[in-house]
């Protein structure tokens, strides 16, 4: 427990990780509270012609300020961005949770069981790592109606391999340590040894992979939604927002640029946090 607390403290001392964490915290608060606080409706069809494609930091004839401008239907881009953030963040985090759970399960089983089970899981993990993720995701969404839940599951089952590898090697090295041997010698059942003694100590590197996993899940969700194969209307995520501004790229670039920048910033924030955690782990080991 304290080891992981220490990891977060060490990561916090890295300025980039701090920036990333603050950025994500602000985004989460804004995504939850923003759509409630913004006075104007995120979607509204009154007098579309007068309100559409207003530039950033401009006021539409109805007297409403638009910090990030409006889209082709006169909808406020910032309000839609924050609504989209709810979907994008939720899908990304849930997908990373699914893939981390699968990865921890597979890695723990392989590392602790050893033998043929281990070899089989390692072979499947290696093989799965060589499969390009997007074509396989396309196959999965082709077989069912696309939607948010399908996207979470598809991203979850295609992103577990890194976590599995890290957890496996941690579990293997922990399994021969004295405190685990002691627990075994005391007659603690194997499953309990794994869950109570080995696994809690094996999760630190998986945290790094999970943080990176959220970033890549958000990026891929946006990509699928960009292709029209992810979250479906009336819900909109950042990916579908980028796609919706595609044909107005020259007259109203902010419609696509705002969600694109949002995706990039969130991915950067997660990679900064993951980098800091990784060097904190490396520093703790190297010293």
């Amino acid at each position, binding site marked *: 427990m304290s080891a992981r607390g220490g990891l977060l403290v060490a990561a916090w001392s890295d300025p980039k990780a701090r920036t990333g964490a603050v950025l994500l915290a602000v985004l989460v608060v804004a995504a939850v509270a923003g759509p409630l606080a913004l006075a104007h409706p995120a979607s509204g069809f009154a007098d579309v012609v007068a309100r559409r494609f207003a530039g950033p930091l401009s006021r539409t004839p109805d007297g409403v300020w638009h910090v990030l401008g409006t889209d082709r239907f006169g909808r406020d881009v910032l309000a839609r961005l924050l609504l989209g953030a709810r979907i994008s963040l939720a899908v990304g985090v849930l997908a990373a949770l699914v893939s981390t759970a699968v990865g921890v399960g597979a890695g723990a089983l392989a590392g602790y069981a050893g033998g043929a089970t281990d070899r089989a899981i390692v*072979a*499947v993990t*290696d*093989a*799965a*790592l*060589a*499969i*390009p*993720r*997007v*074509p*396989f995701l*396309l*196959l*999965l*969404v*082709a*077989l*069912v*109606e696309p939607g948010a839940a399908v996207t979470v599951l598809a991203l979850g089952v295609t992103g577990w391999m890194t976590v599995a590898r890290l957890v496996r090697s941690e579990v293997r090295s922990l399994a021969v340590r004295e405190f685990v041997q002691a627990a075994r010698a005391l007659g603690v059942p194997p499953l309990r040894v794994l869950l109570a003694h080995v696994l809690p100590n094996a999760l630190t590197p998986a945290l790094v992979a999970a943080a990176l996993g959220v*970033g890549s899940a958000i*990026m*891929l969700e*946006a*990509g699928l939604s*960009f*292709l*029209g*194969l992810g979250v479906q209307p009336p819900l909109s995520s950042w990916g579908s927002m*980028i796609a919706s501004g*595609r044909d107005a*790229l*020259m007259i109203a*670039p902010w419609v*696509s640029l705002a969600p*694109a920048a949002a*995706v*990039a910033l969130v*991915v*950067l924030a997660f*990679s900064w946090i993951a980098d800091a955690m990784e060097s904190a782990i490396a520093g703790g080991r190297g010293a």
Partner: protein
Amino acid sequence: MRTALPRRLLLAALTVLLVVTATFAALHLVPGEPVRLFLGPAADPATVAATRHALGLDRPLPVQYVEWLTRFATGRWGTSIAQQRPVSAVLGDALGPTLLLVGASLLLTYLGGTLVGAWQAARRSSRADAAVTAATAVLYALPSYVVALGLVAVFAYGAALWRWPPILRFPAFGATGLGADLLPPGSRLADRLRHLALPVATLAIVGVAGTARFVRGAVVGALRQPYVRAARAKGLRESRVLLRHALRNSLGPVLALFGLQLPALFSGVVFVESIFAWPGLGRVTVQAVLARDYPVVMASTAVFAVLVVAGNLLADALAALADPRRGRPA
């Protein structure tokens, strides 16, 4: 990583088998009935049954599985529902453009990435190094479809709007211009290259950013090694130390990276081909998904995996060439 060739081949075969099995399992284990999605909710039961029979979906699962494996191995991938021609012909037409796109961007990625990374390592911890590191971090975080849209906005729409000279304007759609077949060979080649420019640039920008970060780390690490101190002690020029000793010894890990990056590259290809209407495997796959053309989707997923596996084997072979110690039993 230092595994013998037979084991690598076995893993490659296993990967392909896993993908082919996974595509099969996905088609059959996913809840709901894909045939109904394809035919629409209004289809009567007789049509559903007939389509299931035509696709062979009414036979026992193990029979279908063995049949799917043999058909995949022998290249008989069925008929595209949407295009009414053999899947092998549909994918065969798309393979060339994809290989061209991937090959060109890999070449640029590794040339550019090695140059930028080595340049950074030579002036490590300087302000220029820090600036380039920050820039590559941002570029690497950008999704490829965002880079693609940015390039289209500037070099296709913007260049026309701002009246840039024609040499700086690039086409944003397709692999050839209208009537390209009627052009003389020289202009035809120029036309193809101009169409290739933006899609390749998209993949190469993201690729160079990722590779440069890795090369910088590998070379900086190598510069701390004793053989570098020895090389300096013999009085070699710093450029020679960097290129012949540090960079040369970093090539092994960089080639190992190639195998790890390949799946991501093929994922990027899907987006880039869709945006630029590039007639390759990625675009064919997306269109097949939208048309619920299952034979094409299943076969193309497997072909993507085969390409990655082949690329991995190639990377292993190159790594063995770059480092003669590899491949020998340890």
